[in-house]
């Protein structure tokens, strides 16, 4: 189910910042703090991946086409984001990297803040949060017009948790494993692809 905690944590920070209750020198501190926390974050993501031997076995046992799905979801998202981003006047690098988040709004915001600044981070956060909400609300429509594979792609990284029950309800139990694995693979490649795509296209 949808977890509001990350949004509430972010909002608490926004309110504190807007009220001007931040300690003196906070602006100088936030850069090094963010960099340190990002390093810890990547170490923890890697550690979580490494300690799950079953994850690697499952990945090895899946067919090539099943493994292609998360890659297609990422590439499709980037291509679609570039097209619509250009029409609203966004730079290609920002449009592509924010769309590469595939619904993983917390990590996308953090990475875009580091790579491109606070405005880019805000756009990335709102775009990916809206994607997660829209995916859940419109899942039956995605299954109807884009098939089960298309619905799984639309869910992006959220296919492994938030959107999974809605995928199962609309597309059936048989896609659950594929949806979960697609979401896991996307969650693993998004932390690297967002800053990489920004760097390559900016």
């Amino acid at each position, binding site marked *: 189910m949808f977890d509001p905690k*990350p949004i509430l*944590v*972010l*909002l608490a*920070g*926004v*309110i*504190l*910042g*807007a*009220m*001007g209750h931040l300690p003196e020198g*906070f602006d100088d501190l*936030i850069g090094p703090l*963010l*960099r340190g*926390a*990002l390093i*810890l974050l*990547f*170490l*923890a*993501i*890697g*550690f*979580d*991946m*490494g*300690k799950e*031997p079953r994850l690697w076995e499952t990945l090895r046992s899946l067919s090539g*086409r099943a493994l*292609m*799905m998360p890659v*297609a*979801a990422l590439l*499709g998202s*980037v291509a*679609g984001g570039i097209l619509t*981003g250009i029409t*609203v006047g*966004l730079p290609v690098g920002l449009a592509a990297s924010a769309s590469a988040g595939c619904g993983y709004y917390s990590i996308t*915001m*953090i990475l875009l*803040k580091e790579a491109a600044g*606070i*405005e880019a981070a*805000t756009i990335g956060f*709102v775009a990916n949060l809206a*994607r997660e909400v*829209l995916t859940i609300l419109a899942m039956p429509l995605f299954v109807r017009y884009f*098939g*089960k*594979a*298309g619905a*799984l*792609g639309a869910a*992006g990284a959220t296919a492994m948790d938030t959107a999974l029950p809605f995928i199962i309800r609309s597309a059936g139990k048989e*896609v659950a494993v594929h949806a979960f694995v697609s979401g896991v693979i996307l969650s693993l490649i998004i*932390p690297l692809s967002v800053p*990489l795509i920004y760097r390559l296209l900016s």
Partner: protein
Amino acid sequence: MDILVFALCLAIGIAAGYRNWLPPYLTSRSSWGLTAAVYLLLFLIGCELGSYRSVLEQMSGLGVQAAALCLGGLLGSALLCRIVGGGGGV
């Protein structure tokens, strides 16, 4: 920060998890640590965002751009996955 540093940290993390380099009391708390790191980062970014009045005042314009990215990304993913996976199954 360089993407290579991120990739290196990820690789060190995978090796540490795979080879059990950390003591059990830390291993059992790694998922909790990951969540805490994400929340800390979001809180800090929120603080910075709140202190930038100019960004908050532009929110409606940023919202339109974000909505465009959301729709483009969603439809792009759905369309390409439909082409790769076919209409029926995956």
